């Protein structure tokens, strides 16, 4: 009963960890490069949730100052995650450009087929 109670209180952390593990599993276990990049982006967004969940104050509002409200959520993690989102899209763009070049060189984007055509020394 204690474990179920803890689960409900920490439900968003449980889902965040599930997303993190799911994204990591997609990156490791699947060979298709586009799918690996999608898994990487899932991993990154789970880290955003992990950072922003502790910043919320129940009963507070968004950190835009207004005379009608007095309790605001912490703005500092929002700033860090804004930078992280933009760096994430830069990573995905470069990864997709590399995928297009690999496809032109080997004719396939699957990691196993590329390793067959060009085995490591």
């Amino acid at each position, binding site marked *: 009963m204690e474990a179920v109670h803890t689960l409900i*209180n*920490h*439900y968003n*952390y*449980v*889902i965040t*960890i599930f997303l*993190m593990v*799911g*994204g*990591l*599993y*997609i990156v*490791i*276990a699947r060979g*298709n490069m*586009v*799918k690996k990049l*999608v*898994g990487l982006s*899932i991993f990154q*967004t789970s880290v*955003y*949730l992990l950072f922003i*969940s*502790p*910043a*919320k*104050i*129940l009963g*507070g*509002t968004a*950190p*835009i*100052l*207004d005379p009608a409200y007095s309790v605001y959520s*912490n*703005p*500092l*993690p929002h700033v860090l*995650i*804004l*930078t992280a*989102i*933009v760096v*994430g*899209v*830069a990573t*995905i763009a470069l990864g*997709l450009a*590399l*995928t*297009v070049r690999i*496809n*032109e060189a080997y*004719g*396939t*984007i*699957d990691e*196993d087929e590329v390793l067959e055509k060009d085995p490591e020394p």
Partner: protein
Amino acid sequence: MTLLTMLAVVVIAILRQRSLFGVVILSGIYSFLIASVLIALDAVDVALTEASVGAGMSLVLLLSTLHLVKTSEIKPWRSNLLPLATAFVVGAAVVWATLSLPPFGSPDAPIHKHVGPRYLQKSIEETGVPNVVTSVLADYRSFDTLGETTVIFTAGIGVMLLLRGRRKRGAK
């Protein structure tokens, strides 16, 4: 609560889906769900950025790549045991770490003690800007934003170096 459960369902669907077009559309759905969860957590600037960049730009780039490569995944033939074990170990370690986090939404967690309240109090009198996220991003911590702009610049230069020019007619 339902939004978080839908997120988990979408991730499982991305894992099982073998058509790349379906994977890309599901990742767009995933970005929109993350943006909705972020609004529920009072992070409005971050939600706007995630919706426009994740479900806008990232989706367009993935679809442009699918236009240039073939669009289905071969059947995975390697054993799944080692990746599953690695993922399980990582998950267990992170679960053990988050058990000691303060309860969700409490106003006297240590994160709200140091610099956050100072920025919230002093933002209007020092910078005249009510949106504290913008004033911290562009004034108090503007050096980090310079680094971020340089990262976007580098990504643009990198993609232009890789993809400028026509495809060589010899390759497919």
